[in-house]
């Protein structure tokens, strides 16, 4: 079994943030991200206030800072890219610690870093307070195209099955003395990937048959109604509305 990596993102709890309907939280995070992206990069203090808003949400949801920090690792590739821009950037240059850096490049890097970090933290908070399948229910409520929701749903369901299959193939390779040490072993790994793709594709066909057998006709039935009251919308939208107020002040 592929145990051990379930709900890495989700942090079970019963806080007010946990209890909000998923569609409210999804829309709040999306709107917050739009406001952040729309903020001019020169307004340093506005970004500080946004960070404080997120800190307040984390506090209300009882999400410990360590949980958020560890999961921010996903941002690392973007951070590396952001650090490269000032080095290779063009235009006016300045010297920091003996390194000649491009000024527009520095601004661009700051812009990417600040906005991406705020967006990533907001998403981590959403994922920490909402189970993955509930997020999908929310997306369904928000009329996200049903095909996209279905694809995400199947990914959620079959990720462990496929990882498990991958693990078994690795064990089978290694049982016969295979060791992936250098490039020469790459073809064997590539063939395994191909076999895994075929197997998953065939599984997809069998799942489709199972769905047809139970009356599937292209549309997922609406399961688990999650309706939101005006008060719940109000609470959830507090985040983007406060952010919008900050943006208004900064202009």
């Amino acid at each position: 079994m592929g145990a051990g990596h379930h709900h890495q993102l989700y942090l079970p709890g019963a806080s007010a943030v946990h209890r909000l309907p998923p569609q409210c939280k999804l829309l709040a995070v999306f709107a917050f991200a739009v406001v952040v992206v729309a903020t001019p990069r020169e307004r340093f203090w506005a970004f500080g206030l946004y960070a404080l808003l997120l800190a307040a949400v984390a506090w209300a949801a009882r999400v410990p800072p360590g949980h958020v920090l560890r999961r921010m690792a996903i941002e690392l590739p973007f951070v590396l890219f952001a650090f490269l821009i000032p080095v290779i950037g063009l235009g006016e240059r300045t010297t920091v610690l003996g390194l000649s850096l491009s000024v527009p490049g520095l601004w661009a890097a700051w812009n990417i870093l600040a906005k991406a970090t705020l967006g990533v933290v907001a998403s981590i908070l959403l994922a920490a307070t909402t189970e993955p399948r509930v997020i999908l229910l929310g997306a369904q409520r928000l009329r996200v195209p049903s095909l996209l929701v279905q694809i995400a749903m199947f990914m959620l369901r079959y990720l462990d099955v496929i990882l498990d299959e991958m693990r078994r193939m690795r064990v089978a390779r290694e049982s016969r003395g295979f060791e992936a040490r250098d490039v020469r072993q790459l073809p064997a790994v590539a063939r395994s990937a191909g076999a895994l793709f075929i197997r998953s594709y065939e599984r997809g066909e069998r799942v489709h048959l199972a769905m047809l057998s139970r009356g599937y006709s292209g549309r997922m039935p609406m399961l688990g109604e999650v309706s939101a009251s005006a008060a719940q919308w109000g609470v959830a939208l507090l985040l983007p509305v406060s952010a919008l107020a900050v943006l208004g002040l900064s202009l």
Partner: protein
Amino acid sequence: MNSPNDVNSLEVSRLAYAYPDGTQALFGVDLTIGRGERVALLGPNGAGKTTLVMHLNGILTAGHGTVTVGGTPVRKDTLKEVRRRVGLVFQDPDDQLFMPTVRDDVAFGPANMGLTGEELERAVKGALDRVGMLEAIDRPPHHLSFGQRRRVAVATVLAMEPEILVLDEPSSNLDPAARRELAEILRSLDVTVLMVTHDLPYALELCERSLILSGGVIAADGPTRELLADTELLAAHRLELPYGFAVPAPAEPA
């Protein structure tokens, strides 16, 4: 509801089928299963068992011949009705259980039939209760053991109140205890069952009557006990009892 014997659960008449590449899989299959019967469909690998099963709910459509489920012929325009009446349980429960939780999965069939709210909830809980998996209702399928997943797979079709339950290799990959638990559940259900298998002792345990499908035709049809006692018949169709197994004497007079 009709009285038990005036309509057969399943009638297959002169069913023939060739795959698009020309390979002929079925050469005229005839069989009838009455309401409330539990029948085993035995046959070696490659005998056409799965092909036959795919015809029962119209996933494959007959090249020649007819399939009738509870009086309704399987045709393009009756597919929806037929799929409600034939509960197909696939061999790999990971194919059958595709929703994020057990509850959503069992609800999938009845919801497609138009059930909602309270009624849907009742169908889901009733089906899970019949297979003894009610306490797992909010768990994701991949957190269950293999035997539990197979029982939930049975519940997903029971929730649709099928006329006939068709099980593809129900005992495969089960440990002895899970195998016995599933047998007890199947015996407790009051639906018609067609069990596709080459696990002969399991067929003997659960089904009074057996059919042998071999070479794309029904080669034998009779009481399971008699068929399994006929070593020559079994050998002619690549079937054999497991080592050390002999058909036990009937426990009670038939």
